[in-house]
């Protein structure tokens, strides 16, 4: 079963067999509004937890997407670069940004699970 974890910066990582798919949370896409541009990292790039690894932009503003875990980028979502609105329509599904091979699975324990993230969002209102 894939498990999903969230960062305090509202990225998610869905983890399955040593790999993680990274995107922005549903809350993040709502806050951003209409996403009009997305930029993914180059395949093969080594990213360290907390690095700005992708960019999403709304009409008004650009936001860095910080990778919630370290690893090597092994795939990117070219569909979302062509159709950035997928991030608004389906942030956790077709709106994913990049996939990494995890360098250190123990980093995940510092992230929030679904329930903890839901509690975290309640503190932001």
């Amino acid at each position, binding site marked *: 079963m894939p498990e999903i974890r969230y960062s305090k910066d509202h990225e998610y990582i869905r983890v399955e067999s040593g790999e993680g798919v990274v995107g922005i949370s549903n809350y993040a896409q709502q806050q951003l509004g*209409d996403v009009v541009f997305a930029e993914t990292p180059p395949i093969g790039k080594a990213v360290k937890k907390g690095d700005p690894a992708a960019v999403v932009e709304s009409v008004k503003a*650009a936001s860095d997407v910080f990778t919630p875990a370290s690893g090597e980028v092994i795939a990117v979502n070219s569909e979302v670069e062509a159709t950035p609105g997928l991030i608004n329509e389906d942030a956790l599904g077709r709106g994913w940004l990049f996939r990494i091979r995890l360098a250190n699975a123990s980093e995940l324990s510092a992230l929030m699970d679904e329930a903890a993230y839901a509690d975290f969002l309640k503190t932001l209102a």
Partner: protein
Amino acid sequence: MTEATSLKTPLHALHVELGARMSPFAGYDMPIQYPAGVLAEHLHTRRAAGLFDVSHMGQALIEGGDHAAVAAFLETLCPADLLNLAPGRQRYTQLLNETGGIVDDLMVTRPPGAEGALRLVVNAARKEVDFALIRQRLPSGIRLTPLPNAALIALQGPLATPTLASLAPGEAVETMAFMSARPARIAGFETFVSRSGYTGEDGYEISIASAQAEDFARLLLSQPNVAPIGLGARDSLRLEAGLCLYGHELDETIDPIEAALSWSIQKRRRVEGGFPGAKRIQDALANGPNRQRVGLRPDGRAPAREGVEIVSADGLPIGVVTSGGFGPSVNGPIAMGHIARAHAAVGTPVSLVVRGKPLSARVVALPFHPHAYYRG
């Protein structure tokens, strides 16, 4: 980030009721977007009619004596020809500092049937600065009267005219020329209407007593094709229309010629001068400014935001982006910036340094989206 002392416009409760995302802007708690979102609001304005609350802007009257006296006074601060402003007409101009830098940009209207009065609409964030500057210079017999109890509502888009005309039969708002203004009774409300705006579309800006503003706005919003539009889409609309935003394209270091606003300085003033910084401005008119506001079109999809450096084909810094983002009607990234004159010609290839990477772009003509003003 919230400002404890945020002011509210007379439509504040209505914005909240409509589900707006509110945010501090120029000291006011303003609607950035409604549930439809910036893209939908922008496109709605381009194809139907958008209602904007611009009550945060500063409205004022300068009065006293006859038109010649009031106009002559304001001409000591602004480079537009105001003496020859006909009754019922308005002009876009700038308040200038002693070096010709822009203190603010504003609309000046000569109301018909009110001899010796000019109406001003200035930027929200600058109104205290503007009013202080004007008061400092007031000659005896002329006074400045801010209108804090007047709201300002813009109705913009191709269906603004049929909408307003249907509510005001007999007022002939549909035949008002672009940049004209006069009192009008709309569905029983006493208003002062100008055919102008900040979107590049046909439309109106309607001044109305604050106490009646909410009822009036509700009436407009109840009309078919009218939707509320937030400041987010207001910004993308004005950027596509190539219009300046104070604090971005304009500030106290930029003169009107650098800002590509020479069209707003009529011939008599160019010749006679008599406004602050006239020497610098006349020199720039004669010899060209050292830098100039231009339109920029990135070749790719990445927007270049305010503050992005503009570099030449050989990598030299030649300017800076003053406003940039995504143009929903253009369906791509657009920007304006200040650029060295040698690189300001339309078609010049440049690079915009976005997140450390030079992205290719071109200098383009403004506006990005054609204006649709009513010229009669």
